[in-house]
Every structure is written in C-alpha cells, then in structure tokens.
C-alpha cells in the first residue's frame, strides 16, 4: 500500500470575496521511502499540497490517506498528534525559536510528544550530532550561520523519528555551498528509509530527486522518475 494516497484533492481559498482554487483535483500516490521533488511556479499549488500532507491545513474536498489513515476525519488533537509523530517539517525560513538554544529548539517536538520526556535531552543531542552540530548545542539561533540554523531545524524535524520529511524550499535562503550540504543531508536521510518530499523551484535540486512532480494551476501536469 502506498504511504501517501491523494484522490481528487481540492483546496479552495476565499480571498477578498473571490474563490481561488489552490488545488483542483490532485491524484497522486507516494511509496514509502521515496525521494520526491515537487516543483512548479509560485502559486501553482505545490506548497498547498505539502501543507495538506503535513496536516497544517485541511482539504476542501477529496481524500488524503497517509499510511492508510484518512486525514479528513481527524480532529485537531489527532492531527496534532499525527504531525508530532509522523511528520518532520523543514521550512525555508528555519522557524527556530529565538533566544532558545539549539538543543532546546531540537527538543521542542518532544515537549508535545506522547512518549513523555525520559531521555528527551539525549535524543535531541543525538539528532544534533547526526546533522553535525553536537558542538553547537548551547548556541542560540542568532549565533549560528544560515546553514547551521537549517541543520538545527532538520535535527528538530528528525527528533521524533518521522516517517515523512516535508521540506518547503529548504535551501531558498542559503548559498550554493551550504545548499549542497543540506541536500546531501536529505539524501542521507532518505537512504535511511525516511520519505522525503521536497518543494523547490530550483531545477538542479529537483533533478537529484528520484521522482519529480510538477504543478501548474492547482493540477499535476508532469510526474517523472
């Protein structure tokens, strides 16, 4: 069974009285362990698609099943638990908490996790080590470079052992050298078995994924391996 199954997925927004169709009937299946790049012009619906998979937003209609479970029928607490346990988010602007150490930033999802806090610090330290920042755990985001901040954000995404890593333009704010490091990190993580969904508009990055889907006007217009 595919890990992600979207069937006729529709998302519309009301914006200033006019209805905007961000997604207009998307059908796609993603297998466990895939490395998927989602591309398209801005406003094509690629970010909306990712937000629906991450349960940050709810579809207007259609069905979205993750690991066999329909997201549409879940309440807000169940969605929160789903985000906490199954999804790791990486954002373009890192979204780290200011004036909070790297370690505490990484440990943040554990604060809301059902498994309690036993070994939370050790877990967070291990994740920081995995992204090569073990020596920076006491630093605040303002004391870290952009690349380092994004690594902290990735460590945070990994701390709950997610099944799916959702990255929305993760290298958009980074230089080419750092971009390369981050992309390599994603590839490593994908090799360890995590499904990676990477939203990007950079063809170089998209080309390295195993599969590329392209959005235009709220629809998938290309799906290539």
């Amino acid at each position, binding site marked *: 069974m595919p890990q992600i199954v979207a069937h006729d997925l529709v998302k519309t927004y009301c914006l200033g009285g006019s209805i905007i169709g961000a997604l207009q009937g998307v059908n796609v299946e993603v297998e466990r362990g895939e490395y998927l790049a989602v591309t398209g012009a801005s406003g094509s619906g690629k970010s909306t698609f990712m*937000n629906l998979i*991450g349960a*940050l*937003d709810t579809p207007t209609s259609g069905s979205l099943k993750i690991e066999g479970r329909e997201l549409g029928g879940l309440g*807000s*607490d169940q969605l*929160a*638990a789903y*985000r*906490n*346990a199954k999804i790791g*988010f990486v*954002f373009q602007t890192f*979204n780290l*908490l200011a*004036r*909070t150490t790297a370690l505490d930033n990484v440990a*943040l*999802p554990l*604060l*809301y*996790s059902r498994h309690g*806090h036993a070994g939370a610090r050790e877990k967070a330290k291990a994740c920081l080590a995995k992204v090569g920042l073990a020596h920076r755990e006491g630093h605040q985001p303002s004391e870290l470079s952009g690349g380092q901040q994004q690594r902290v954000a990735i460590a*945070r995404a990994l701390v*709950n052992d997610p099944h799916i890593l959702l990255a929305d333009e993760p290298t958009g704010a980074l230089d080419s050298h750092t971009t390369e490091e981050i992309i390599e990190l994603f590839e490593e993580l994908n090799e360890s078995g995590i499904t990676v969904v990477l939203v990007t508009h950079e063809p170089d990055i998209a080309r390295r994924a195993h599969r590329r889907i392209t959005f235009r006007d709220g629809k998938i217009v290309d799906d290539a391996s």
Partner: protein
Amino acid sequence: MNPLASFRVAIDALKMHALRSFLAMLGVIIGVASVIVMVSVASGAGEAIEARIRALGTNVLVIFPGSFTSGGRRAGEGTALALSENDLAAIRASVPTVVGAAGMVSGSAPIVVGNSNWTTSVTGVNADYLDVRDWPLADGRSFTEAELRSGAKVVILGATTARELFGNAPALGEQVRIKNVPFTIIGTLTEKGQSGFGTDQDDTALVPLSTARRRLFGAEQTVPDNLRTIMVEVASAEAMNDTQEEIENLLRQRRHVRPGTPDDFQVRNMAEFIRARSETQSILSVLLGATAAISLVVGGIGIMNIMLVSVTERTKEIGLRMAVGARRRDILSQFLIEAVTLCVTGGLIGLLIGGSAAISMSIWGNWPIALKPGLVVIALLSAGLVGVFFGYYPARRASLMNPIDALRYE
C-alpha cells in the same frame, strides 16, 4: 505537555520581556496592595467597633422615664413619673425573653478620701447589674444579699474613679465619703472603656440600690421604690425588637398611657445605636473593598492587553509549535499559565507592599489594622483568578489559530 514544562516555557517567555512583564504586573501589584491595605483598615475599624459593642454589654435595653407633659408644659427627659421596683418585677415576670433586669438609681456625687476628691456618677444597683452589663470585678467582691437588703454602706469603684482617688495604691477596704456618708470599698471593676456615646464608663461608683435610695438620692424619690433606669438583658440579639415592643406595651398599660398619646417613658436599644454605626462601617468596608477590587480588575485589563500583544507578536511561534505537534490545549495552557504567573507574581509583590504598608500604618499611624492570614490567601487567589479570567481570551485566541496561517504570519 506537562504543567512543569508549560511553567518553564511561561517563565522563559516572561523573562524575555522583563520590563514589559513588570509593567503589566504593576496593575496587579497595585490592585493587590490596595486590597490588602483597604480591607485591613476596614476590618480593623470594624473590630474596634465590635469591641465597643461588647464593652457596652450586648443585647441590653435601657428604660427610663420620658418627658413630663402637663397642660402644654413639657419638661425634659426623666421628668415623667419615675419607674419603680414594681415595673421591674412586672417586666421580669411577664416578658419571657428577658433574662436579667437591673434597676438603678443614679446621680452625681462627690467622693472624698483623705484630701483628694472626685465627683462621679454614683449608681445604686441590685444583684443583677454586673451580669446585665457583663462587667467582671478586678478586685474584691460583689454586694451580698444582706447588704442589698439592709442598705449597707459599701461601694464598688469603677477603674477611673479608683485611679483618680487612690492612684496606683490599693483601694480595697479603704473608707471613702460619698455625700458625707462613709462607705467601705468592697471591690473594684475591670476597665470597660468608652461607651457607644463616648462617655467613660469606668468613671463610676456602684452602691446597693437601697443604700442609694435611703442615703444618697432619697430627696428625689417621687414614687415608692423608685428607679431612675432599668437595664434589661435580652436572651438573644434577634429577640431585641420583639422584647422592646413587649416592654413598651407592658409599661403603657401599667402607666395608663392612653392610646394615641406618646409614651411617657423611653426604651433605648443601645446595640441598635452601635449597630447603626457598624452598618456605616460595613458600608465603608464594602466601598473600600470595591475600590480595591476595581483597581485589581484594571490591573487584569492591563494583563489582557499585554497578553494580546504577546499572542500577536508570537503568532509564528504558535504556528511552529502547532506544526511540531502542540495541541490546542497545549497552546491555551501555555498562555494561560503565562497570564496566571504574571498575576500571581504581581500578587505576591503586591502582598509584600500592601502588608508592609498596613503594618507600618498600625505601628506609626496608630490605625486599628487587622491583617488576617485569610486575607493573604484571598488576595493571592483573586490575583490568580484575574489571571485566568483576563488571560483566557488571549490564550483561547492563540489556541484557535490555524497552523498554516499562523506559520505564514509576518
């Protein structure tokens, strides 16, 4: 998220804006401090008044003859036909709620001992008097039955009188002369303080009723066994009004007052007079308390304002927390705990300020202050409630945010 973690997150967030947190707290600090001071002052004053009521002897009715009217000529209070022992006996016999009744004859008389003298109110009393007034002896003994019956020349001095005549020397057993009649001092009374009318109740001397009639105020006798005043002790405070009415009816009958004409005697309810004063006092307490409560509410509005600013400012943080798995109730409790922490911390500081203000007022200002431990609990509790009440709306607003909108907020 467990409460301890929420609390730590709240403390960290508050420390991040220390000055702003302090300014937001200021309203609660002032509110709680004023609650403490105002309620302490009000209840201190209330206790002072209650002590006066107790000093008067509670549940006491005082009866004395009213004004005398004859052919349009009206004289002052006490000029009407005097009361008598028969009236006293009738009251005692036919009003069941009366537990004690004391008749008195009183007047002003000079007391002389050696070369010092003191003019005071000398009252002739019967056996019930000290019980009715709830007035214990400091020294010596009360009148015996034999002394009361035979009109013995014995006297019990009030504290002020004893002090004026003897200073600190013992008065017991000494001889004094009242209106040139020699008396032996058999006892002294404990201090009772001021009456509700502001007179010094200790400036007095008590002699047996029969002695007062025969030897001191005999010339004023208009009826046999006359009484200047009757004091009645009533079983309970609730029975006061009914008892007063019954006594009035009884006396109108006995004194043949025709229906439609006013009483030629007066029944005074001492406690009522004091109660009126203490009612004024409690209105004052309520007003003071309300003023303080209003300042606490204003402080709460300040908290709400700051929390709303804080929630808006941290919209992105809220979005992120939701993205990594915070449930609505986690966000709600985070901001609620922040507001309550602000308020309770402010409450504690206010408590210290208000408490020291109240204590210094009682030490240097000589105010009657009653700083009760219960008040401390109430002040902190109400600060916490202010936090919950005024923190709830901002916290709920934070918790109802849509994760993606919150994340995208700029």
